């Protein structure tokens, strides 16, 4: 079968020193929504820019429907659409005019042009604002307009770099509902980057976790969570400078599959958290480690991330500055 996207051994080194991608392997089946989940600086954008033929990899291969992104760049560009992380519409003309210019760049035939533009506006819920200057749009509307520009040419694959960055939850939901509807109608594939684990969890068919330029885990969000084989006991301790041998002791319990420390938080992975908790507490108490609070959680993608990447994703960090950045971009137009 021809994969929609196939990447093997991709390495990208910037200016001979910064290693953004360090041997990436992944494949995406046609018609799927694929999420690349990772913190800022993990290499998500670099990978997407290589897949969309903007930059060349240092080594390794990448194929879009069997076409090599370096050698067959021109043919790849006819199959794909791309929404970059930064704002990518002209703010000093109207929404309709943005689509019109893109339609002309892509050579949409005159006979279909108007219908396709209004279809795209309609599908993103922008019809009534079509003739307003983009400068007057909200952040969510601008994102929808960018998606409308990307959908206009009915691409086989849609590349979205942080599609809902800086959007509030309801705007985010609106963008995704419309993207999913488009996918269903046109049998398209979506590849998106995100650092919001809930976004990957809610909307992707398959998720790959990337950290420091490598894919550390991949699968459906469900299978990734199942791969943790257990539930998590989170323990917040009074003093994080305890003897690490305590962890070994906990790990030694037959019901415990893993122990991870992140600052003053100990995460214990157990088959049955409720039953294991007293035994874990017993070990901590006998080693004079004071526990401030304990909680039991069923695994989320964040925990999966913690296990495979060794750090937390911190989904809320940077939210405010992102919103500001988006606003500033709009203000400039």
């Amino acid at each position, binding site marked *: 079968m021809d994969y929609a996207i196939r990447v093997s051994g991709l390495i990208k080194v910037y200016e001979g020193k910064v290693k953004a991608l360090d041997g990436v392997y992944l494949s995406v089946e046609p018609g799927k929504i694929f999420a690349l989940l990772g913190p800022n600086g993990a290499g998500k954008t670099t990978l997407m820019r290589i897949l969309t033929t903007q930059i060349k990899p240092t080594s390794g291969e990448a194929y879009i429907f069997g076409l090599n992104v370096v050698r067959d760049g021109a043919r790849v560009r006819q199959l794909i659409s791309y929404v970059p992380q930064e704002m990518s519409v002209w703010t000093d003309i109207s929404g309709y005019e943005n689509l019109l210019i893109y339609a002309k760049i892509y050579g949409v035939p005159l006979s279909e042009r108007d219908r396709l533009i209004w279809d795209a506006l309609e599908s993103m819920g922008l019809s009534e604002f079509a003739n307003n200057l983009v400068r007057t749009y909200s952040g969510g509307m601008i994102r929808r307009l960018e998606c409308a*520009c990307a959908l206009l040419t009915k691409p086989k694959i849609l590349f979205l770099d942080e599609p809902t960055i800086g959007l509030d939850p309801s705007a985010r939901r609106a963008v995704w509902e419309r993207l999913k509807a488009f996918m269903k109608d046109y049998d398209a594939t979506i590849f998106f980057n995100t650092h919001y684990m809930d976004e990957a969890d809610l909307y992707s068919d398959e998720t790959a976790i990337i950290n420091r330029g490598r894919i550390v885990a991949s699968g459906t969000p469900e299978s990734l969570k199942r791969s943790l084989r257990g539930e998590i006991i989170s323990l917040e301790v009074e003093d994080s400078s305890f003897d690490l041998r305590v962890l070994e002791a906990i790990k030694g319990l037959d019901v415990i599959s893993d122990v991870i420390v992140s600052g003053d938080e100990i995460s214990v992975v157990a088959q049955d958290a409720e039953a294991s908790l007293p035994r874990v507490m017993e070990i901590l108490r006998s080693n004079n480690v004071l526990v401030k609070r304990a909680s039991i959680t069923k695994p989320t993608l964040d925990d999966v991330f913690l296990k495979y990447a060794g750090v937390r994703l911190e989904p809320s960090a940077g939210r405010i500055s992102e919103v500001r950045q988006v606003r500033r971009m709009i203000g400039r*137009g």
Partner: protein
Amino acid sequence: MEGFIRNMLAMIELEMRRLKHDRTELYSRAIQPILWIAVFGPIMGSVRAIPTGGIPYTDYITPGALIQSTTFISIFYGLTIVWERESGILKRLLVAPVSRYSIVIGRALASGVRAIFQALIIIPVALLMGVRFVPSVPNFILALLIIFLSSGGFAAISILVASFMKTRERFMGIGQALTMPLFFASNALYPVSMMPEIMRWIAFFNPMSYVVDAVRSLMITGNLSSLLTDLAAIMLFDAVMFIVASINFRRIIE
């Protein structure tokens, strides 16, 4: 080839639509050339120190002031590219199925649209000031075409500069440092024959001299003896700048 022209036309249309919504830049940038024509021209002309070949000094510098202003517009057009780089527009254009040459040349020529509209603001003011133009529609159209094409070359310079200067602030500095020497080392305000030897060489390689000479001969003097040389020089300038800017364009995105 079809895609190439299509993309160029789309870029030009984009510029016209922008102008339809906001023409402030054209008006504010018209002030300076109008001052040259309305104030500097008559005062310097009254001295009669500059040999203009028998035409009034204000008439002599009108093409110069006009080209100076359209060139400035083109040079600062690179700012648009810097802004589009900071936003995601350029990335998106690069992923469209069009050649990179057509993006550079299309954007460059789009600045010619601004330049023409700028000329259409300044020329009526010059007419009001009593500047006598050659009353010929073909001359007038050819002059506008020359302004359009040469603006493309100057905008390509600025796109080239933009691919090195990746922030607006740096670009502003270079933009200023580029435009004034172009203007003073040209025949915009005085004939090249009045210049010292070194300046004459600079003027010889300064594309603005050829543009001013072409527009002056078409619009003011009607003496077309050097027009072909001028056109050839402008075409060469455009071709070189388009190619160099396109080759360097890759830098702007990395």
